[in-house]
């Protein structure tokens, strides 16, 4: 995912990226030496608490702000360069449009900014209006659009000219459940074309259905990254034991991360149900007496909250 094995030129390459916002006498370090390499055709969930640096990170990749330190390259080109911008589509958290323009006129305007010919503009506009189910509202002024419709229009604009990288900042804001499902379908279609999608969202349950690759940002740093790590903590296996056994069990389960331990048992992080027989048999073979086993499957939201709390405590 993040190794760039598939492509010689990674879609995103960030090296030691730092961003400090200065305002008067105060300085806020929004990102702190973040390095990341993303190859093509992946969907990555960017998650973290408010103020973690998610929007800053997306803004830096999109070239909207400058890094204080480090370098960012998009498809091999420096961020903010014309070539980098040609490769990406971006949806800000609260997309703003010219209120007097209709959805069609807005799309045609942005398509023109891509340098497309008149015929290509018409073709792209019709394709995206249909794909995002905006045909019905195509000739209405954008000023009267609901937040959900604005998000769909923003997504249509971001998809103009088939970008190789799509950056989405809270794209499901204001979308109804049907809109969320459609968004998911569109993003999976985009991924199938070989494009990379980075999606920042607070509605973590939605991300879980899109991807297993996450970037956890906390206080401007990447806390966890890579699907194996995230997946490795997707389940909590609660093992109940006879008194005195938990310590022995913990020593035996060195390849599993201990999460809780008490007199009556312990909880370890496992990848999923497939790990349960392995854990149980290794304990039984060592003579540990088990009185009960329960797998508490965690979704990404619970995992994130736990990682966040653990990170906060450390």
């Amino acid at each position, binding site marked *: 995912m993040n190794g760039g094995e598939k492509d010689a030129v990674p879609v995103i390459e960030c090296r030691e990226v730092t961003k400090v*916002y200065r305002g008067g006498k105060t300085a806020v370090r*929004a990102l702190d030496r973040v390095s990341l390499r993303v190859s093509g055709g992946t969907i990555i969930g960017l998650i973290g608490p*408010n*103020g*973690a*640096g*998610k*929007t*800053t990170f997306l*803004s830096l990749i*999109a*070239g*909207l*702000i*400058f890094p204080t330190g480090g370098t960012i390259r998009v498809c091999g080109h420096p961020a903010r360069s*014309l070539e980098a*911008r*040609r490769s*990406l*589509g*971006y949806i*800000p*958290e*609260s*997309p*703003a*449009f*010219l209120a*007097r*323009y209709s959805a069609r006129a807005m799309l*045609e*305007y*942005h398509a*023109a*900014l*891509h*340098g*497309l*010919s*008149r015929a290509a*503009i018409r073709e792209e506009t019709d394709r995206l209006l249909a794909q995002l189910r905006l045909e019905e509202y195509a000739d209405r002024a954008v000023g009267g659009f609901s937040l959900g419709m604005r998000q769909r229009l*923003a997504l249509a*604009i971001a998809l103009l000219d088939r970008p190789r990288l799509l950056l989405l*900042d809270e794209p499901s804001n204001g979308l109804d459940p049907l809109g969320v499902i459609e968004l998911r379908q569109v993003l999976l279609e985009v991924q199938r074309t070989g494009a990379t999608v980075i999606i920042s969202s607070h509605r973590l349950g939605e991300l879980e259905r899109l991807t297993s690759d996450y970037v956890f940002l906390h206080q401007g740093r990447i806390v966890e990254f890579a699907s194996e790590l995230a997946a490795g903590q997707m389940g909590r296996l609660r093992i109940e034991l006879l008194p005195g056994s938990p310590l022995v069990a913990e020593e035996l389960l060195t390849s599993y991360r201990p999460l809780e331990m008490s007199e009556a048992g312990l909880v370890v992080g496992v990848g999923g149900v497939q790990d349960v027989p392995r854990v149980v048999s290794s304990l039984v073979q060592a003579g540990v007496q088990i009185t009960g086993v329960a797998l508490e499957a965690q979704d990404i939201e619970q995992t994130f909250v736990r990682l966040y709390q653990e990170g906060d405590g450390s």
Partner: protein
Amino acid sequence: MKAHALIIETFRRRQAILIIHLAWLGAYAPLFLIPFPPKAWQWGGFLFAWSGCLLPLALSAGIFGHDIASGRMRLLATEPVRLWEFYLYRLLGLSLQAAVHLLTAGTLILVLQRLTGRGNIDRFAVWLLASWLIFSAWAALSTSVSVVVSREHNSMLVVLATIAATFPLYMLLLFFEDSIGTKIYIVVLRYAGPPVELLVRLGRGRCSLPGGLGSIAHSLLLTAFYAAIGILLLNRREFTAIKD
């Protein structure tokens, strides 16, 4: 298509722009009800002040500042358009609006003056050119200020800065007319500020042909200079989100 879209956008970006044009043009007709004697009122000079100096401040209000404050620039700045193109085509859009506006206003004034005989239209074509030149200079200055000032405050800031720059001039002329400081201040205002004085002299025919051509060239260069500063600022501008 890119240039066309950006030029048209300067006209369509706000409903108020059409209203401003109509209001400005509408202001000419009622003035013809006043029985100006031919020597007391010069329509060319009025056009210069009304449409050449005031109109650009109304049309360029928030031209970048509003986009930046509303977050629209966060969508625009990721499009494959060089930032200098954004600036240049927007300024060109304003300049073209001015050209159409001045030609319409000029035709209106010519017809009404011919019908009523009120005021004079001496050197009207030169005044039209001077009005377009001063419009472009003010528009470039205001557009550049708009890159660093949020919302529509750019026009207000230009007005306040103009007042702040001219008030000391009157004081200096009143109390220190012959001092070297006053002379330097006048030179700086004359050549670095929007060339109102030089173009008024051009309109009134109080300069030689080379002097007039020099004023035209100076005005165009100054517009380009203001634009270059705006482009530089735009390239160095960050388009941040309100939250993170």
